[in-house]
């Protein structure tokens, strides 16, 4: 068995598949590794539409979207392993990494010039969002509930309370309702909904599901299975207000309280993490602080749209191509991207004037009629509104980047 590759892609979801396809198109010798027994990642279990509007200019279900990409991947004959788990990445030299992979066919020791890490995210669970009470049956993360229902065909429960009004929570509210369950409420910590307006209308209003804003589930009660939850109002600092507790009877709690990049293996390899994105610090080639380790998709930053995930997968592949072709990225003058007013997170962290760069950002709070400004390069974009739940995606031209000194600030300011 061959064990030297130009690129090893870790993760067989949309980011990883796109990265592998692009790598192969660029002529690299590529291997993809997937932990589960099947390729496709999370979209395999997304039966709802809203995928591919940017990338394919069509409204597809997650399943349809990923099968188009998967078909291309398989048609190209790209080498891959399912049921395979990378336990270690050792930066062997500047130009090589050693990977230890446990598979059901044996243990692989691989040598890769570049690694693209596309392992996606994990879901935040009850202990991370301060829920106290009984640890009983009937508590699921949204993704787990979705896997149960839409892959393995089993129903988690009947009387449902959903925590979090991001798109994942809203879509699960509709899925549960369609299959005959009673969604009693969606509970949102923030004073505004976390998901797209379209999903508020089509997933909640269509079915008369109540949305509690500025509320938290603070406690779960039940003997063997969930019997009720305690919900509490929160103040402007998101702290529960004593005396506002309310009980909601239910048998199921579904947590859609956000995602966190899942990075165990590359953290051990020494990758530096940005506390805002909880993903790695990267340059505009999506290379991490360990040379030759690239990252894409929700392992890089939590995205709203699979289209962006695919875009990042391709970008990382182009970065890996540069790395492999030249034995490393060129020596460059990096400009730091700096978060200014009302910018909560910003990716990538460093850009250079060697190419146009797509930047992804989120604001701290919703605002209407604003300008996104890059004062150092004199760029301004007007937006009718910004919301934390909607990623801002802007292309910076290399000619603009060249105008900046050692940093480029992005700020969101009122449009006067």
């Amino acid at each position, binding site marked *: 068995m061959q064990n030297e590759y130009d690129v090893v892609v870790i993760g067989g979801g949309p980011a990883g598949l796109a990265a592998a396809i692009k790598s192969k198109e660029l002529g690299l010798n590529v291997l993809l590794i997937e932990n589960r027994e099947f390729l496709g990642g999370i979209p395999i279990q997304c039966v709802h539409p809203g995928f591919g509007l940017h990338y394919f200019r069509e409204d597809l279900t997650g399943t349809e979207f990923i099968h188009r990409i998967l078909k291309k991947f398989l048609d190209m004959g790209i080498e891959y392993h399912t049921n395979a788990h990378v*336990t270690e990445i050792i930066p062997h030299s500047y130009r090589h990494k050693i990977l230890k992979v*446990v598979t059901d066919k*044996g243990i692989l020791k691989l040598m890769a010039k570049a690694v693209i890490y596309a392992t996606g995210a994990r879901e935040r*669970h009850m202990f991370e969002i301060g829920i*106290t009470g009984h640890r009983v049956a009937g508590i699921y993360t949204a*993704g787990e509930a979705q896997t*149960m229902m839409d892959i393995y065909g089993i*129903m988690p429960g009947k009387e449902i309370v959903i925590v979090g009004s991001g798109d994942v929570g809203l879509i699960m509210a509709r899925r549960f309702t369609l299959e*005959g369950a009673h969604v009693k409420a969606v509970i949102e910590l923030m004073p505004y909904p976390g998901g797209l307006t379209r999903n508020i209308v089509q997933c909640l209003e269509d079915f008369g599901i109540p949305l509690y804003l500025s509320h938290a589930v603070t406690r779960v009660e039940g003997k063997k299975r969930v019997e009720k939850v305690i919900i509490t109002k929160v103040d402007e600092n998101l702290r529960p207000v004593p005396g506002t507790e309310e009980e909601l009877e239910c048998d199921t709690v579904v947590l859609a309280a956000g995602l966190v990049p899942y990075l*165990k293996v590359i953290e051990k390899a020494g990758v530096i993490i940005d506390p805002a994105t909880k993903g790695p610090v990267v340059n505009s080639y999506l290379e991490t602080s360990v040379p030759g380790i690239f990252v894409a998709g929700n392992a890089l930053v939590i995205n709203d749209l699979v289209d962006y995930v695919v875009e990042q997968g391709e970008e990382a592949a182009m970065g890996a191509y540069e790395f492999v072709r030249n034995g490393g990225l060129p020596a460059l003058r990096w400009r730091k991207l700096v978060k200014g007013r009302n910018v909560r997170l910003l990716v990538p962290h460093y850009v250079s004037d060697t190419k146009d760069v797509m930047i992804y950002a989120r604001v701290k709070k919703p605002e209407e009629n604003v300008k996104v400004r890059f004062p150092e390069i004199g760029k301004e974009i007007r937006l009718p509104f910004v919301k934390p739940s909607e990623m801002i995606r802007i292309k910076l031209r290399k000619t603009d980047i060249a105008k900046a000194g050692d940093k480029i600030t992005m700020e969101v300011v009122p449009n006067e």
Partner: protein
Amino acid sequence: MKVVIVGAGVVGSSIARVLSQYEGLEIHLLEKNADAGMGVSKANTAIIHPGHEDDPDKYPLRAKLCVKGNRLWYQWTKELSIPAKWPGELMVAVEEEDMKVAEHYLELAQRNGVPGVRLVDHDELLQLEPNVNPNAAGALWAPTAGLMSSPMAAPALVENAVENGVRFHPETEVTGIKIEKGEVKGVETNRGFIEADLIINAAGLYADKISAMAGIDYFTIHPRKGEYYVFDDDAEPKVTRIVHQTPTPITKGVYVITEMNNGLMIGPTAQDLPEEAKEDTSTTKEGLEFVWEWAQKLVRELPPRNRVIRTFAGLRPEPPDGRWIIDAYDDPWGFINAAGIRSPGLTSAPAIAHYIVEELIQGKLDIKLTRKSHWNPYRRVFWFKTLPEEKQEELIKQNPAYGRVICMCRTITEGDILDIIGRMKKMGIRTISLDGIKMRSGVMSGTCQGSYCRIRLANIIARETGIPLWKVTQKGEGTEYGIGDIKVLLREEVKENAE
């Protein structure tokens, strides 16, 4: 001779193991839950105490059996492949005047015969534990303290006991005790009557109820709740030693440890609950805040709060005056209590088992027991992740399941899980539950807390036991993973409309 042990917690299971060394006994170990060790034994600090905290005048049994239990666990954890480590313990004197308290415990250590205990000053304390509160005055150092994987203990003990002939009866709840002419005759259970010449009550929080069934009803057991935080295994800083503080009249404070999965753990609280709250293992905001506040006083720094991966609470069975109720009776003859086994119960369990078998059964009741010529002290298990690479390769060749990593946080493979399921079946477990596998492997207890791997685990259980996926349980009946197939509710609606 027929022996019934009520309760397969760490105490009951230890008794079963020790008794299994003797000939001519038909030993039945009864457990109301789906698995061994699902009650008190599962959720605690998991410390193997050195034995210098109990005053031998006030608590003679606790003082004597803790020191002995500490030694026995050193051997038992090896024999039974229960993960354990021996980092030693620091009782920290945060203020200068607390050193007097530390001195008091040094005296107890001398009286109880605890090896190696000594006072250390500020400088040595910081060498022994760099993450301790740098303003602390000093500490009492007890090098024999250890930590174990307590959820694995009872299952491991039972597996070994069954290997040596003990019959394990899970999901078997004692509803009555039959006594004739002042002698015990057997127990009534939800699964029928089981004859017994000896009944040993190790029913944990319910030991008062079982004892009352035998007419010994002078005591009640109330639950004392302890709440904890667990951090992720890569959350820093950690501690090298077991760290706690000199007790005050108001509180014992909390422990800060690095648990067996290598995550920092802080706790517990000690909240007395009413007698009827024997299932209330809920965490509370107040309790968790207490833990955080006290842990902070003890160490230089805790990891950030967002690195917490779990909070939990356990219950300890508290006897009326803090004294364990370990005794054999003349009336009814053949009834033995091992009740109210509060801390240091986990540490002392092996010693309690020997005490009951040697001093109560053979001593007080004067029953002659003969050791078996062949008794297997070993339970040999391995974890794929800890094996050398050649061995891993070999295993995957034998069974590809060893190459399928199911739990990514803890690197547990399908092969590891199949081994566990095999052992559970052999041990006599009726309901292979998610928690049963979790207790034995640490699966679902890492960063993701099962959000990724629980369904994969449930699929394996469904396949291996031939039940539908939704019927797999968290920990026995009433805790099913789902409520039916995906169309179950719609079919109900169609049916209702038709009627």
